[in-house]
């Protein structure tokens, strides 16, 4: 029973990492509604932004780096592209965390804009200069927009998850 509890706790703590790896290995496809795929968003970016901002001890930079490498392999683009993009996002997020005195959801949501912009900029620069892959810029813009739009939903879900699972431990942070 004791071991089961330890495994359960480990699993719950590691869930963000598991999700990050899972969605790097598996790119889910949600059917399009009409001409626009409203559900095309980058879950990994939301996850990285939230956890680096709020619970950096639960999501290491090393894992972000490896997840990026896996993502590159699955997508078939130059190795390290997504890693650098994710790490750029982490850098901006880390800066926002250090620069912010009082955290509020709205301010963090709007701080997600420059983070996304910087991350995608790095991604596009590498894609354009280091590979021959053609890209659908409109789709990337759409994806980025919905990533930004869905952030509050996941913010709420992740916050609730952290509250429920690590209530005692994380009370101080909320």
């Amino acid at each position: 029973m004791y071991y089961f509890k330890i495994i359960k706790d480990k699993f719950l703590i590691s869930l963000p990492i598991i999700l990050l790896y899972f969605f790097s290995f598996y790119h889910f496809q949600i059917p399009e509604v009409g001409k626009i795929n409203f559900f095309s968003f980058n879950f990994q970016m939301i996850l990285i932004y939230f956890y680096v901002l709020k619970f950096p001890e639960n999501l290491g930079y090393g894992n972000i780096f490896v997840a990026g490498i896996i993502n590159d392999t699955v997508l078939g683009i130059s190795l390290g592209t997504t890693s650098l993009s994710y790490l750029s996002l982490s850098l901006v997020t880390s800066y926002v965390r250090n620069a912010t005195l009082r955290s509020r959801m709205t301010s963090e949501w709007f701080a997600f804009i420059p983070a996304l912009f910087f991350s995608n900029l790095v991604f596009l620069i590498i894609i354009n200069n280091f590979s021959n892959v053609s890209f659908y810029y409109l789709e990337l813009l759409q994806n980025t927009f919905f990533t930004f739009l869905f952030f509050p939903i996941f913010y709420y879900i992740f916050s609730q998850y952290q509250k429920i699972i690590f209530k005692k431990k994380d009370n101080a942070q909320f």
Partner: protein
Amino acid sequence: MADHRDDFIIAIRYALLKKGAKQKFSLFFLIVLSISIITLDKFELSFMSPVRAVLNDFVYRVSVVASQPEKIKKNVEKKITNHYNVMKENKFLIDEIEYLKRQKFNNAYLSSENQLLKTALEFSENKNFEQNFSIVAKVILDQESPYLKSVLINKGTNHGIEKGMTVFSKDYLMGTVIETNYLSSRVLLLTDLNSRLPIVIEDSTINGILGGLGNKSNLNIAYLPDNYELEANKIIFTSGKDGFIVPGIPVAETYLNKKNKILIRLLADPNQALVVNVTNGQINN
């Protein structure tokens, strides 16, 4: 102004270099590592290919495993949809069977009535020809010969095949048996120069003799009336005038070629025939 800039630099430096409580690597180190990997991948150094190959194999296999839930979900959805489709189809087929049963009885009645009327007119089909022999044969040799357009089939006199029997490929007349052996026979194709077949053209009473020119897309009709012009998209049937082959078997069709010239092509494709049907569909004298 300078204070703001200093604050920014300090925050960036802190973000880049501070590892944090449980961080094993600093952001700076990982960013440098990423840039190095991108550079190595870009210049395609020799040791990068095996590394990438191993990584690809590993990641693809794990990706396959990771996508299993989605595949299972799709399979379940497909099976449910199929189940409902089968149910729907079953209902439709039951209705169709009922309808066909009714039609069958109706047809049987019409057939017997037709037979009675034919007997009354002394024009029974059974009196003129019979086609009670049919055997499936395999084309064993289809050699391109400049002399004779023919094929060899794997059935001969041992199987009841006789000279003059008609050979069909996919319900279309392809040729006639000209040579029989014990276990094989030779079929003269309608495309052969030596082939002659009395025909009648669709929607007309024009008779002629269909002969081959060595090509299935270009046949020839001899003995057509003077000043008669062929029309495109007309089916050519056997006329049975030779008293040998049953009338009314579709043989060829007329068509307009790219140069707007009306040509005749065979309905059967002898080059593609692998299995043929040999029948005695000739008039019984």
